[in-house]
């Protein structure tokens, strides 16, 4: 059974990941590249002024995020173009394999029969837990947006995903009213605690571009969950039959 889990995760993740990587290439990635142009266009001009006037130096010293971004550029990163596309696609496929494995873990632990319809319901819940609920607190951002410390955001994100996932499972799988109430409380809890935000928003990217990116990236994550779930639900019974025949 372990072999079947690994094979189906790999195949389903590969198939769904490839499709979504192609989608990303024509949807979210062009917006990220555009945002980076805004970021560098606005980050570049102050430099000569800083050299000329003492006052401008304060602005440079103040913009800590630019320094962080500058430090990052010294490290290795994929070259723009084909290399960047390949790394992005590989990472998306890796994420899809991870989502497929998590989906199988949940369905097998719950004792569900694995078919496309049930897998799609799990996939939709996966998107609610990993995409929509964390996204309501921490809206998906383009590069250059102001935000709170990364670690605080990651912890809130993971906590929200865990609370939402557990809440959805309790609500859908149990009849007792107090458990359903507990489920709703669990789903609301992270939002009552509140996501960490930057003290002052200072995005260099136009709001229209950022808003477009936010809805687009949530849609892409939804597509990744659903495509992965459909592939898992379709491949699992086939593997079953093949193994029975062998």
């Amino acid at each position, binding site marked *: *059974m*372990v072999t079947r889990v690994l094979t189906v995760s790999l195949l389903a993740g590969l198939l769904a990941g490839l499709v979504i990587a192609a989608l990303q290439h024509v949807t979210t990635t062009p917006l*990220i590249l555009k945002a980076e142009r805004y970021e560098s266009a606005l980050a570049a001009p102050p430099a000569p002024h800083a050299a000329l006037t003492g006052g401008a130096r304060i602005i440079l010293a103040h913009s800590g995020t630019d320094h962080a971004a500058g430090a990052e550029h010294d490290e290795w990163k994929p070259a723009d173009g084909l290399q960047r596309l390949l790394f992005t696609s590989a*990472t998306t496929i890796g994420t899809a394999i991870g989502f497929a*494995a998590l989906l*199988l873990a949940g369905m097998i632990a719950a*004792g569900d029969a694995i078919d496309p319809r049930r897998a799609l319901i799990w996939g939709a819940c996966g998107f609610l837990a990993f995409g929509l609920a964390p996204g309501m607190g921490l809206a998906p*951002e383009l*590069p250059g947006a102001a935000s709170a410390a990364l670690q605080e*955001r990651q912890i809130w994100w993971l906590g929200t995903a865990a609370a939402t996932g557990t809440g959805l499972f309790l609500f859908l799988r149990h009849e007792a009213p107090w458990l359903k109430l507990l489920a709703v409380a669990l789903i609301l809890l992270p939002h009552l605690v509140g996501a960490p935000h930057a003290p002052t928003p200072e995005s260099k990217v136009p709001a229209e571009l950022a808003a477009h990116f936010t809805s687009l990236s949530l849609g892409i994550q939804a597509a990744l969950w659903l495509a992965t779930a459909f592939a898992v639900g379709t491949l699992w019974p086939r593997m079953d039959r093949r193994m029975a025949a062998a």
Partner: protein
Amino acid sequence: MNTVSVSIPQSSVSERVKAVAAALVIGLALVYTTGFAASTSVHNAAHDTRHGLAFPCH
């Protein structure tokens, strides 16, 4: 009303536990690496995917 249907009859409980554990470890490790790992090289390689799939980034 707790009618949980047992729908994977052929596989033993221990086999299911092993399968769930393997799937969980692989799933969490992969999603952590692609979406959360702090290493700068991993971050840079995964950058566009992290933004594009709404993971917290930067």
